[in-house]
């Protein structure tokens, strides 16, 4: 939590040209001291790059952490100073579809700047977006984050926590049926959340089924969307073809399983390209002994 206050102070007081080098030095510091995150990154990268050496994966883990530092920093910078970013869109017509949809689910991953993206989407399209996420381990850090998100999105981003229990499901269903957009990260499960088994990079991975169940019940499309950092103050918004979850003759579970399989294939494709921005700071693959 203290580091978030330091970051906010630095963004307001340190000249922009000192920020990159100080950020890099800070990343080196955290890389050595944040051992659990480092180990998780290396473990996940070992799956993405099975034929790669351990040293190469440690360098990749550092690069991922460095990108993580940049996205946090730039999201905070936007909150504090409303600085300009440039962005390009892959799937512009799909983004327009999403912006005008009467109820939709945005399915994303712990990738790039999902926080900044939500805030910018809300501002650009003047649409409220409800972001479902796991709370930060530290309550004061969570309060700081929630306040930051509110400030960045000018009130257009609402945060719901996936630890809120079954009532959250009904809230989200009402929201989506009411025409709102709900954003959920679909690359990690937390204890107590319903999940299904998927496969990525020939390894088993647990995927939360909440987004797919919600899409099935509410009969709204799921838009896979990722916001990756494309350079200094530049971002790329990637929108893929919507996943439509429809009940078939085989039943509800099969419909959800098919959607999960499709999501896993898509996520694998995006992670293979943007592995350096997949901020999976916890192990996500089931360890079958090969990791």
């Amino acid at each position, binding site marked *: 939590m203290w580091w978030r206050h330091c970051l906010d102070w630095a963004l307001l007081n340190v*000249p*922009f*040209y*000192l920020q990159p*080098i100080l950020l890099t030095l800070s990343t080196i510091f955290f890389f050595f001291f944040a051992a659990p995150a480092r180990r998780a990154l290396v473990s996940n990268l070992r799956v993405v790059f099975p034929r790669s050496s351990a040293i190469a994966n440690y360098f990749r883990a550092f690069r991922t952490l460095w990108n993580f530092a940049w996205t946090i920093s730039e999201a905070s910078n936007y909150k504090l100073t409303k600085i*300009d970013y440039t962005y390009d869109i892959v799937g512009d017509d799909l983004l327009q579809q999403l912006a005008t949809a009467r109820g939709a689910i945005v399915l994303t991953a712990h990738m790039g700047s999902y926080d900044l993206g939500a805030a910018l989407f809300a501002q650009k399209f003047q649409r409220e977006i409800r972001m479902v996420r796991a709370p930060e381990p530290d309550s004061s850090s969570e309060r700081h984050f929630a306040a930051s998100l509110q400030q960045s999105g000018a009130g257009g981003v609402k945060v719901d926590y996936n630890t809120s229990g079954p009532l959250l499901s009904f809230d989200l269903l009402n929201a989506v049926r009411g025409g709102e957009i709900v954003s959920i990260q679909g690359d990690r499960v937390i204890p107590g959340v319903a999940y299904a088994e998927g496969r990525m990079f020939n390894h088993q991975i647990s995927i939360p089924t909440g987004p797919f169940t919600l899409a099935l019940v509410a009969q709204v499309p799921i838009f896979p969307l990722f916001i990756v950092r494309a350079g200094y*103050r530049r971002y790329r918004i990637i929108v893929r073809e919507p996943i439509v979850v429809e009940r078939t003759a085989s039943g509800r579970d099969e419909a959800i399983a098919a959607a999960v399989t499709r999501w896993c294939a898509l996520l694998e494709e995006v992670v293979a390209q943007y592995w350096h921005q997949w901020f999976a700071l916890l192990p996500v693959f089931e360890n079958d002994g090969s990791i």
Partner: protein
Amino acid sequence: MARSEADAPQFYFALPRLIAALRHCNAARTETNWLEANVAGAAVMLVSYLALDRLCLGGAAFPRQLLFLLPLVLLTWIFWIIALYLNAQIIKLFRSFRMPAAVSNARAQSLLIGVITTGFACQLASDPSWRRGIGITWITAVIANLISAGLLAIFSRQNAR
């Protein structure tokens, strides 16, 4: 969020902005240039690292300098964290004496950082070794930038009339 890049400002420092102005491009200040952000910051760190290296290790042999490479990088980092904090206190003091509000804290810090780094560069410039070149390069860049800033201010006043 995004703007047309056709005539967008491209530089922060006065020298490239002067060149842009002479080429009839947008000479307004911007902080979006990644090259400036990385090169200027790296230059500040390099000059201060070399100055601290000279201060701490003097004319030590190369193997000894290599041994102390990482500790000196850490020392440089810590130096700047402390310097930025002390600068912030100085700026707070100046604001109590009614320093113009139009000068942001970051710009005021930039001025103080420039002074500190130029001080380091002067120390390097008196060194008989290859470090002298680094010091002189920094001092030359600062002088060129200051002259460019002056010229831009004159052009700006002329255009305003």
